[in-house]
């Protein structure tokens, strides 16, 4: 048998042009079919419901809650009783600092390291998934999780808000009033802005995930970095580094509730997330494509 015959072997199809889609679909179904993912989303869905019920129980303390408490998150709480739509804003403000990124940290941290510790990584690579292609699919599915997680919070908040409270015109932080439809649109935009806020952190988690062969260690380290960044962001002595910390502009989404919308901070957030995604995405790629897979 000659070399040519050997290499010809069974007919090998040329990879399809949409070469990434098959594995992306597989990544998504694998991620979302896990009990753990469903549990995380369940917890996220429960948070707005709990906030809504708590506010409903506390309804006794008046319903004035003047507009614009300075753009801070919990300020929205006082408006929830007037308009259930505000539960969306309140719930996103409450989950963005901790719950949402923690869930993303679990999924991103586990993405590569979890496959390594389970041993399935070696079988994906000899399939052959291709290291760059697999990493891209992993990152894409983490980003989809960011969006889904945010939407779960928003939709659950909208449903709970509409059930527990009246809905109607929205008073913006600037004091003007906009229609319910417009308010709904802004809520949707806010959900997207929140999801985009997590893009940089997701890349960081992916990078950490390529450093170790233990899924648990990667998840813990990713969440540890999140908490550290959050603490650093609250220390006035470290003012100089604050603009470079990935959570620094996270609450900028409240600017979407101004009239007219104030874009500066949101654009800065977008830029910062892009830089984080580029830096840690490249680092993850450099690490993963040269790594010895010995587990």
């Amino acid at each position, binding site marked *: *048998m*000659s*070399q040519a015959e*050997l*290499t010809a*072997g*069974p007919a*090998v*199809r*040329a*990879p*399809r042009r949409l*070469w990434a889609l*098959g*594995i992306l*679909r*597989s990544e998504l179904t*694998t991620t979302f*079919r*896990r*009990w753990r993912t469903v549990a995380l989303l369940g917890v996220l869905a429960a948070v707005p419901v709990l906030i809504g019920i708590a506010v409903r129980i506390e309804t006794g303390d008046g319903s004035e809650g003047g507009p614009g408490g300075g753009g801070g998150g919990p300020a929205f709480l006082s408006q929830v009783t007037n308009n259930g739509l505000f539960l969306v804003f309140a719930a996103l403000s409450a989950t963005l600092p901790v719950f949402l990124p923690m869930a993303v940290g679990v999924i991103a941290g586990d993405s590569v390291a979890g496959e390594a510790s*389970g*041993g*399935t990584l*070696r*079988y*994906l*690579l*000899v*399939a*052959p*998934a*291709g290291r760059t*292609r*697999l990493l891209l699919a992993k990152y894409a599915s983490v980003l989809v999780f960011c969006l889904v997680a945010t939407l779960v919070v928003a939709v659950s908040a909208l449903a709970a808000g509409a059930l527990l409270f009246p809905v109607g015109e929205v008073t913006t932080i600037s004091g003007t009033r906009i229609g319910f439809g417009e308010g709904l649109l802004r809520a949707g935009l806010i959900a997207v802005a929140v999801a985009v806020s997590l893009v940089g952190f997701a890349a960081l988690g992916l990078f950490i995930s390529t450093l170790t062969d233990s899924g648990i260690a990667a998840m813990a380290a990713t969440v540890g970095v999140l908490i550290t960044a959050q603490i650093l962001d609250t220390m006035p002595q470290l003012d100089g580094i604050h603009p470079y910390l990935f959570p620094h502009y996270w609450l900028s989404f409240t600017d979407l509730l101004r009239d007219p919308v104030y874009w500066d901070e949101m654009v800065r957030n977008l830029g910062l997330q892009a830089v984080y995604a580029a830096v840690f995405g490249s680092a993850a790629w450099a690490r993963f494509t*040269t790594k*010895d*897979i*010995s587990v």
Partner: protein
Amino acid sequence: MTDTVAATAERETGPGPGTVIETRGLTKRYRGGQLAVDGLDLAVPAGSVFGFLGPNGSGKTTTIRMLMGLIAPTSGTAHVLGRPVPTAARTVLPQVGALIEGPALYGFLTGRANLVRFDSADPTADPRTRRARVESALDRVGLAGAAGKKAKAYSLGMKQRLGLAAALLQPRSLLVLDEPTNGLDPQGMREIRSLVRELAAEGTTVFLSSHLLDEIEQVCTHAAVMARGRLVVQGPVSALAAGARGRLTVTTPDPGEAARVLAAHGATGLVTDGDRVSAEAPPGEVELADLNAALVRGGVRVRAFGVERASLEDAFVALTGEGFDVTG
């Protein structure tokens, strides 16, 4: 003697056309400085069932991982199906089915969903035929009945079968099977062995690592033996087994006298154990009957006289120095 076998094997299977796996000075030194594989020159002929033998820690799995592009060699080259790895791994690996260091599955997915997952990872796999290929792979390893069960509920043997099914999702030119009968009951082992023979008959080259020597002897046409990161010998199984010379054994009530006579006739490696005296089988030109006659002439009362044929196991033990020392 073993060196001659290696040299002959090298000439017969040597590098060039007809070689499915070929390595040149393949070396892997881990970061800690530990030398896992040391200057490996391996040549696996096309169409062979190639047994890859060696005690634990001898570098077999590291070699397989280098061949599959999972780890980068420190130096040396490796070619699989005529293409260099890891450089051309993406074009080579779709034609290679592999079972490496036991199966690894997603416990929360069913057996069937596990195969779909691994198949989706291969960009050359046609999604339109995926269902059918998954079912036929399940069928082939006898898992069709349990395909709907979650993989975490599988026994080790079932996991092993599912791992094999993943290696058989597409027609392959080369199958790399690392300890494929691990965890299987005797019936399962027999099934896997006949599956390997079937695949080989279809023209697939099978590269099989195993500790079970009788398995290698039963299934393999060629074999290589590794010890401490180095290739000790490689070649056709028949040549390897022949390479380990048998033992000439004399059972007699006069062992001392027998040993003296045998030594006088040039026998080496004499071992006396009770009424048994054994020595390395003499070279082919010595007529054994003459040796027996010499014993009798020397006044040795011979109860039994004969050469115990060497098995591959003897060859293995002699080559790797594992276990007791055959040469006494």
